[in-house]
């Protein structure tokens, strides 16, 4: 059963600490997305990659957030230093680019709490 896997499921950290969230996209998918979900802002796109290259990270605070794809099976989202306002659920999703009729599959998210 192919699925997007995110780790950790939950993370509690102190303000100022580095946080790394990981995502394993579905094998064969060439597009990876990072979304953030908060009560106030809803679901927002932070960044996405095609064939491991960043295509758009305009939704991401550049001073503290960074997203990478070290290889085709791993995407990471880092926050350094973390702040309480970063508390949210972070979703990774993957899909097949250049095929408008395919859907994006979501992981179960990482719930981040910064205290």
């Amino acid at each position, binding site marked *: 059963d192919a699925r997007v896997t995110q780790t950790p499921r939950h993370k509690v950290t102190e303000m100022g600490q580095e946080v790394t969230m990981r995502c394993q996209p579905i094998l064969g998918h060439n*597009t990876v*997305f990072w*979304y953030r979900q908060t009560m106030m802002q*809803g*679901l927002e*796109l932070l960044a*996405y990659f*095609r064939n491991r290259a960043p*295509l*758009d990270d305009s939704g991401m605070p550049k001073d503290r957030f960074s997203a990478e794809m070290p290889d085709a099976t791993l995407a990471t989202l880092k926050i350094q230093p973390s702040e309480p306002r970063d508390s949210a*659920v972070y*979703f990774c*999703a993957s*899909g097949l*680019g*250049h*095929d*408008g*009729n*395919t*859907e*994006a599959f*979501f992981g*179960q*998210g990482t*719930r981040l709490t910064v205290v």
Partner: protein
Amino acid sequence: AQTVTQSQPEMSVQEAETVTLSCTYDTSESDYYLFWYKQPPSRQMILVIRQEAYKQQNATENRFSVNFQKAAKSFSLKISDSQLGDAAMYFCAYRSAWDGAQKLVFGQGTRLTINP
């Protein structure tokens, strides 16, 4: 930029009844896709139904159907014979057909409660 609006923060329905969730969107594009996603308490985002803008026929998936009004930029979801398992947050989403990367723009969501 495209926007998606869900005007109903919360809805409730009796089990076995029918409920309709509203969604409107704003775009200058003529070709795009619209989606309804379900998010149960487990947080998993589950695709419920998809509509291609170039298709006039409304999409249907078992008990779920949409009313797509392209001129009015409206995309409502109808759930028939509501079941307790339908209780969840429902998100309407837009994706440009010209954006091969499948970037989704989401509405704020509607929380659906099913009363037994």
